[in-house]
């Protein structure tokens, strides 16, 4: 089937430009916070499959339906290997879509300077392959539905079925729901540093997607009394697909990610020593400069208790276990390209993240928040720095002396959050 013939006779080909427009909108509207993070790039960009998957299923269904309508079906059922044109039509939808997806992910990985992804290239490529297989699966589903219905009904039915399946066997928890979901691609708006991919999950998912998509694509058709029906073998295999999907949920692991609580390893400086994850190198220079400004101001003003031995960037599963090393979380807004606020930097440097009480169901007492903001305002005042959109309110906020500062820091170090 030639490119031109496919372009003028098939609708599925046109899903690829829509996929491309989706990516361009994503790139231009979101600030691309995932740049530099390989895992997050792969997972975030798979989010567009929730839109593209049903569209591809619908277009693929329309194409398949047009192959099996009266006046054309004879070419399918009388040709040797009668699924061949149907499979090719499906591939004319799936392959350009996969190409756009691969190129988009590749461009973002290059733009983000990803050279050493924490998840490893192998697992990341497996996760990417799962995304591509989800595309093939949606197209195969649409093609299978389209073979037995008229074009318009087939398109609508396939689109709706695909949306429903994304809701039922997609993942509402962006990979953290604890259950296996066949159409899960991990789309999520939070960084993935602190996790690695669960290869058993991804491998099982890839296998089930590939096998079931293959069965759907090769679903045989026959015509009886003017009606297009599945072949007996094809119908049995399609029922097998319906059975395999829930069975896979029972057998395969429920967690798409495994915890990787590695500390950051891109370190520099000595007072304090600042370590960040290599994935965030693009925002590191500004962070280091701001921490150094704050540290010098505190030491010059006689507030050495404020300055820790080290500052470590936190991940979703790693944070320092003592207050000599402060845990700093880079805000998502900063990853989106906004300038890091001084208030946020100071907050990150005095937040006692090593204390389990901060992660308990019941939050810390009000006194803790008063002490925390007092430390932040004191530090910003020492350095004559702006407080951003958090104004100092003399009725509620206070500035601390060197002694009071030391006392609060010592209490925070012991995780005594109440006075």
């Amino acid at each position: 089937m030639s490119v031109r013939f496919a372009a003028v006779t098939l609708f599925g080909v046109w899903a690829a430009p829509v996929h491309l427009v989706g990516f361009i909108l994503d790139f231009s509207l979101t600030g691309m916070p995932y740049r530099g993070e390989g895992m997050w790039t792969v997972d975030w960009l798979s989010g567009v499959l929730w839109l593209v998957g049903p569209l591809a299923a619908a277009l693929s269904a329309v194409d398949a339906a047009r192959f099996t309508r009266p006046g054309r079906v004879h070419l399918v059922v009388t040709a040797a290997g009668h699924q061949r044109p149907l499979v090719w039509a499906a591939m004319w939808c799936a392959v350009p879509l996969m190409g756009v997806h691969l190129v988009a992910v590749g461009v973002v990985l290059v733009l983000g300077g990803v050279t050493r992804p924490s998840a490893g290239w192998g697992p990341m490529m497996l996760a990417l392959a799962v995304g591509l297989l989800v595309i093939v699966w949606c197209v195969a589903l649409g093609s299978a539905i389209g073979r037995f219905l008229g074009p318009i009904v087939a398109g609508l039915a396939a689109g709706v079925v695909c949306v429903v399946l994304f809701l039922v066997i997609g993942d509402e928890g962006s990979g953290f729901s604890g259950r296996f979901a066949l159409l899960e691609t991990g789309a999520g708006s939070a960084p993935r540093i602190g996790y690695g991919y669960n290869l058993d999950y991804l491998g099982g998912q890839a296998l089930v997607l590939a096998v079931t998509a293959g069965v759907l694509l090769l679903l045989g058709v026959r015509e009886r009394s003017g009606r297009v029906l599945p072949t007996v073998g094809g119908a049995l295999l399609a029922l097998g697909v319906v059975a395999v999907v829930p069975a896979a949920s029972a057998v395969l692991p429920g967690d798409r990610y495994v915890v990787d609580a590695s500390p950051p390893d891109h370190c520099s400086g000595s007072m304090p020593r600042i370590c960040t994850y290599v994935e965030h190198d693009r925002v590191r220079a500004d962070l280091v400069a701001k921490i150094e400004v704050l540290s010098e101001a505190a030491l010059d003003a006689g507030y050495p208790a404020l300055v820790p031995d080290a500052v470590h960037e936190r991940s979703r599963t790693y944070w320092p276990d003592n207050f000599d090393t402060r845990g700093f979380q880079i805000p998502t807004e900063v990853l989106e390209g906004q300038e890091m606020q001084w208030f946020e930097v100071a907050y990150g440097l005095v937040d006692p993240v090593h204390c389990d009480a901060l992660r308990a169901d019941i939050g810390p007492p009000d006194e803790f928040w008063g002490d925390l903001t007092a430390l932040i305002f004191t530090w910003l005042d020492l350095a004559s720095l702006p407080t951003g959109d958090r104004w100092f309110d003399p009725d509620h906020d206070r500035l601390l002396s060197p002694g009071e500062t030391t006392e609060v820091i010592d209490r925070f170090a012991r995780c005594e959050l109440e006075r």
Partner: protein
Amino acid sequence: MTVLSPGAIVAKDLVKKHGRRFQLGPLSLHLEPGVTCLVGANGAGKSTLFRVVAGIDRPSSGSLRLEGPGSQLLGYLPEELDLPRAATCEEFLHYVAWLHRVPRKDRDAAVTSVLEQTRLLDRRQSKIRELSKGMRQRLGIAHALVHNPPVVLLDEPSGGLDPRQRAVLRETIVGNAQNRVVLVSTHLVEDVRGLGGRVIVIRNGSLVFDGSVVELERCDVASAPGETPLERAVSGLIGESE
């Protein structure tokens, strides 16, 4: 185009049942190269026979065998062919050749040859939507011939064509029946005479005549409707439409 070894359709006690309402056969036939017209009233079983021969429907009993060289034995033009209107004639025929597994290196020659045989060579690059109805029917015949099958089924190919288009179409069919079984379904007496060759008449699923046009004319029934002996013979044999 390579010269064909002769093809054949061999049916023995062929029966196709549609529930309790209709039964085609039992039919025993041996169709050899040349044009054979299949004539019958609406509902007589012409399309059922075509679908069984085309392999779309399975016979209920009996046997059917297509003979000829190669694996792609059959070319089939259904009564209503749905052509991709945005494609050119060449693109569509390339696609059909690909579908029938004509080797890539032979496809250009096969398409050129079949366009020539159906007098559409000068329309090679024309979009299908730009073709007249007669040209589209000839393209339909081309699509049934592009893989050079030894057996060709043409279901009502002249339906809806004007007299001149029908004449051109008949010439095209006759010109492509060398060493090839061409079974043409029609209820136009003009086609029966113009295509010549063998005529098979079926009525209510049963074979009621199998012979030449000359032999068919001898079945003239004076009381049957029609202006010529052939018309009266055909209308007498096929009976009322179902």
